[in-house]
């Protein structure tokens, strides 16, 4: 058995040159965001009556949800299938999911014309609407993710509540509250973990149902009644690549040893998952005979081919190669390709495939839209960095004396 790993807050300097770049991107993005809230959506975006949805929905929301799939796939692997080996990656994946979904919610709000009515779906239901289903599921799942994260907060602060000034009077009662929460959550967490997986399956697939109603406005290469299944399968197969991608980046950034053994284990699961996704995607194309649209070369057919070959087939081959999955660069490249494939897939489904009947030109995202999207990504990375410095998320070699009652908790 190798050295014991234990999640601990990372102790490093927050500001680095890379972080400064991220802060600048985030600031630019937030400026564009501010303009959107002051002058309206039309001021910042290239959206129009022809193209009502752009990259804020296609990337910020749809891709955001897909790339946060690491949360439920690792929860299923670590807690439901009970593979203890993977506990070290459950917390980083959970943090990514919680942050990812928070930004999905913020992005939805940014795209809503009447953002201050975002709560309306809670009381005004439309069971026929795929969007209603997505909305409700995302709201509940976001709550579940925060609940799943709570034990990490209690672990960090039990016995360490130390508020400044007059607030210190509350130290004791807050500590009591945390201990109470910790006891309750310890017994009931399984309810939330299963709920998280079910909710994820529901809205990941319903996100695929969204575009079906657009009918022939959507290019036949993507418009298919099995879209919900394809969305679910692609979300499941991008979950672990995302975990690997992040793990390798954060271990580099924090100068930690990559968890090679765990990552290799994950890589062995990705191959079969990608194969299932590929089988359904090809099968759908053959049954609907939509491959005829690949015979001619245009933007649509090229993008579909890249999505299929670079995003699925190449990484599939790589994940089935032993030499590739043994090396960290190999894992990193293969995982990046899967992520790129899903990125392209969501962009294709929501933006590229959409051709309105009375289009006078194509939709090209504006500088403002791109700045907001990049700004959100930068902000997310910054908050992630801050969070792993405050909370015990990333597993590190354990100093012998620090074993306490709260060090062995899973989740």
């Amino acid at each position, binding site marked *: 058995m190798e050295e014991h790993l234990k999640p601990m807050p990372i102790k490093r300097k927050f500001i680095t040159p890379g972080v400064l770049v991220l802060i600048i991107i985030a600031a630019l993005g937030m400026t564009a965001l501010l303009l959107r809230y002051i002058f309206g959506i039309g001021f910042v975006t290239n959206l129009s009556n022809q193209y009502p949805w752009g990259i804020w929905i296609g990337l910020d929301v749809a891709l955001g949800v897909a790339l946060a799939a690491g949360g439920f796939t690792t929860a299923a692997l670590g807690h439901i299938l009970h593979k203890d080996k993977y506990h070290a990656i459950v917390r980083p994946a959970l943090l990514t999911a919680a942050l990812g979904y928070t930004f999905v919610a913020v992005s939805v709000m940014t795209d809503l014309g009447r953002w201050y009515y975002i709560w309306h779906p809670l009381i005004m239901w*439309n069971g026929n609407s795929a969007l209603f289903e997505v909305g409700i599921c995302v709201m509940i799942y976001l709550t579940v993710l925060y609940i799943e994260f709570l034990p990490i907060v209690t672990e960090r602060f039990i016995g360490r509540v130390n508020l400044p000034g007059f607030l210190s009077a509350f130290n004791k009662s807050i500590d009591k509250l945390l201990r109470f929460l910790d006891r309750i959550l310890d017994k009931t967490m399984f309810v939330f973990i*299963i709920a998280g997986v079910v909710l994820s399956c529901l809205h990941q697939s319903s996100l695929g*149902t969204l575009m079906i109603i657009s009918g022939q406005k959507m290019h036949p290469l993507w418009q298919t009644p099995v879209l919900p299944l394809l969305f679910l399968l692609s979300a499941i197969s991008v979950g672990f690549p995302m975990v690997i991608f992040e793990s390798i980046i954060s271990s580099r950034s924090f100068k930690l040893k990559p968890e090679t053994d765990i990552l290799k284990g994950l890589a062995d699961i990705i191959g079969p998952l990608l194969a299932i996704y590929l089988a359904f995607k090809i099968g759908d194309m053959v049954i609907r005979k939509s491959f005829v649209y690949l015979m001619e070369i245009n933007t649509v057919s090229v993008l579909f081919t890249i999505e299929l070959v670079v995003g699925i087939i190449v990484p599939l081959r790589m994940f089935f190669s032993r030499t590739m999955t043994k090396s960290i660069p190999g894992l990193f490249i293969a995982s990046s390709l899967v992520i790129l494939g899903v990125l392209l897939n969501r962009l294709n489904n929501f933006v590229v495939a959409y051709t309105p009947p009375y289009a006078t030109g194509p939709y090209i995202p504006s500088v403002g839209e791109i700045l907001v999207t990049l700004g959100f990504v930068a902000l997310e990375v910054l908050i992630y960095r801050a969070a792993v410095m405050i909370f015990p998320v990333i597993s590190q070699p354990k100093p012998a004396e620090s074993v306490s009652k709260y060090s062995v908790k899973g989740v």
Partner: protein
Amino acid sequence: MPKQSRRDFFKTTAALSAVTAGVTSTKIKAESKDYIPDKAMGVLIDTTACIGCRRCEWACKVAHDMPTASLDTYNDRTVFNEMRRPDHTALTIVNEYPGKELDQFPIDVKFQCMHCNSPACVSACIVKAFHKHPNGTVTWDGDKCIGCRYCMVACPFQIPAFEFDKAIEPDIKKCDFCFERTKVGKLPACVEICPNEVLTYGKREELIDIAHKRIELYPDKYIDHVFGEFEVGGTSWMYLSSKEMPKLGLPDLPRATAPGVSESIQHGLFAYFVPPLALYAILGGVMWINKNRKNSDTEE
């Protein structure tokens, strides 16, 4: 001659009844519960009669308290140089297309919300801000709308328009079939002002009969197609024309209703919440078994 036409008559009747039998069965399937044949009203647009005076555009703006220039300015025919669409400033517009032959008059076509029998917007809307009324009208409720624009993604006719330039309370704008006017027995504003009887307001079922009768009477004038009779499950507004519909900006659409596939998927996945609950139960079972196995492993 009379003999022949008599035989023709029988032939046509036989063919017609066969077609009707076939058509009725698809009709029942295509139309949703929203469509009430006795009450549904509609408008038949005879594009062969339209002279492109655009009075309907003016009347529509006046009826909806929207800013408009004076009626004289609508005589300006240069607007026909480009293809327009209804938007947040005009709920209906007229476009001009070249005639059948080079020497024939151009064809003017009025566009507005089609008021589908099974509206995609009503099905898609996350908060039920769209409502299909018994008389066929589809209206939008600003007190509910959150501005997500999913209705615009869903609409097969690219009709709902959004006020992109507004930061607060942007509206979705579309033709409301003059719901407030028809409620008190008035005609829709565009129908009332039309000087050439292009627009016929009436019960949808009767309009379909009228349309087919016109085609039958003037087979040289019209092509044999009532646009909106079957398209996306049928629409309240229907068109007659002398030229193929896709060439007049009326899209080639299937008979299946726009929200049909999406709704059956939604209802399949959530049939009485059985599938989600079943998934929950299965995952719970798997978790329990794996946990017990782990525990017995450590005990040994």
